[in-house]
């Protein structure tokens, strides 16, 4: 029978939640790296026992961890993230030039085929690659150097590269997203990049339709349709069907289209999930009701999913890396909250149950479906 392993990064450590395919009884392991901020953990699709984790601290900086046994034991690997050449400047909040400074790793993305190859999205926004299991990291400098890098400005949470999507049909193609620069694509394995933000409209920047400057919160892809991406922007939910060359809004009947997460059903590329958040000033659900919204039509038409979720007095947030899906026959959906809950649905969102309820604020959730 298949098993599921949920990797949870929190403000005060990492947790590994495991269950059989029924997804009713869960074992909780952790906290791993207790007291450290665990921004993200993710397993290698090529070797599920290989897991990478970003461990950070305002005091002690960045540490990278690697597990070769599914998260039971860990070893620290390389933590030197040096920008290529002279780093230059990006824009600061007030529009003045600000030197590029490495702060932390927001997201790790293991290669689809090689357990020793892994990408890291970092703040200040840049992408790094390791081909030796995380011991050494090299910047894919063409991203920052593609032409608009000096105009990128941080969002309220920092200038972070938070999303990395690998195209399973084309190893040379990757998509990334940066707050608050936007989405970018490479078609040559990360050497050169282009901004892919046409169709985004952001009222809060000087030119609402600028090439860059959009606060993209998250993008998601179904592996069978790598040219179709879904985006949760600061405001607006969008989709593209031409690999980002053109986007269109699909917020439709959402009660608010602000939010952070977006993800796609494992078996139906037109079924999409978001968690609407009231506004950019009030980072909690509307009316204290935690609702996941599901579209079975690739956007536009959305239905609220509430069974098992708190429908009063709920004022948590769901951060951008805190939703994931498993690939079991009945697709499981998972998300974590800043209130320390990790909710799971084993029926594609119809019903929800908290796996854990009292963890530290959840930064990230990833799921591994194991044989």
């Amino acid at each position: 029978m298949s098993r599921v392993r949920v990797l949870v990064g929190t403000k005060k450590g990492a947790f590994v939640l495991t269950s059989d395919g029924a997804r009713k009884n869960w074992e909780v392991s952790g906290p791993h790296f207790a007291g450290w901020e665990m921004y993200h953990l993710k397993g290698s699709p090529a070797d599920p026992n290989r897991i990478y984790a970003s461990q950070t601290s305002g005091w002690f900086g960045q540490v990278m961890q690697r597990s070769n046994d599914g998260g039971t034991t860990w070893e620290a690997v390389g933590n030197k993230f040096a920008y290529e050449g002279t780093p230059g400047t990006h824009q600061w909040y007030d529009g003045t030039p600000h030197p590029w400074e490495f702060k932390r790793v927001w997201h790790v993305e293991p290669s689809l085929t090689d357990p020793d190859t892994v990408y890291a999205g970092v703040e200040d926004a840049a992408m790094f690659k390791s081909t030796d299991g995380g011991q050494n990291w090299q910047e894919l400098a063409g991203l920052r150097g593609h032409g608009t890098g000096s105009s990128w400005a941080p969002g309220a949470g920092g200038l972070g590269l938070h999303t990395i999507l690998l195209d399973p049909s084309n190893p040379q193609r990757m998509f990334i997203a940066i707050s608050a620069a936007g989405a970018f694509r490479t078609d040559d394995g990360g050497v050169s990049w282009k901004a892919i933000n046409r169709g985004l409209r952001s009222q809060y920047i000087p030119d609402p339709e600028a090439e860059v400057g959009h606060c993209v919160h998250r993008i998601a892809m179904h592996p069978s349709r790598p040219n179709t991406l879904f985006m949760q922007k600061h405001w607006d939910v969008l989709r593209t069907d031409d690999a980002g060359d053109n986007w269109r809004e699909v917020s439709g009947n959402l009660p608010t289209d602000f939010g952070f997460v977006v993800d796609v059903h494992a078996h139906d590329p037109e079924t999409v999930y978001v968690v609407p958040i009231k506004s950019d000033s009030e980072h909690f659900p509307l009316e204290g009701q935690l609702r996941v919204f599901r579209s079975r039509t690739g956007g536009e038409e959305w239905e609220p999913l509430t069974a098992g979720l708190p429908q009063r007095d709920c004022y948590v947030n769901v951060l951008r890396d805190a939703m994931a899906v498993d690939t079991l026959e009945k697709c499981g959906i998972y998300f974590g909250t800043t209130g320390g809950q990790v909710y799971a649905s084993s029926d594609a969102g119809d019903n929800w149950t908290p796996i854990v309820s009292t963890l530290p604020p959840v930064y990230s959730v990833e799921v591994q479906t194991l044989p």
Partner: protein
Amino acid sequence: MAHVVQAGGGPRVVRVELPFHLRTLARVQGEVAVEVTGLVTLGAVLDALERLYPVLQGTIRDHDTLKRRAFLRFFACQDDVSLESADYVLPDAVAAGAEPLMVVGALAGG
């Protein structure tokens, strides 16, 4: 604190007290002891510490500039030596192993 220039001789064993999270990271308990050849300077002790525990590289000082991380302080014989240069010669009591060099995390955060 005034100190005298240390006399020559062989390697010295210097005690270093690390904050909880760095002890956990280095997988040590209590103080650690590092061997320093030549003058027992702040930089020489940190170099020796990072050689013995490579996992600490980048967690106390920047990898390249070797600049102290902002929320860490160094104390020797109850004196704050955080702002001293890497060439700062630590007090004889530290060089002799009678007192530890203390690496302390700032009291801040939630």
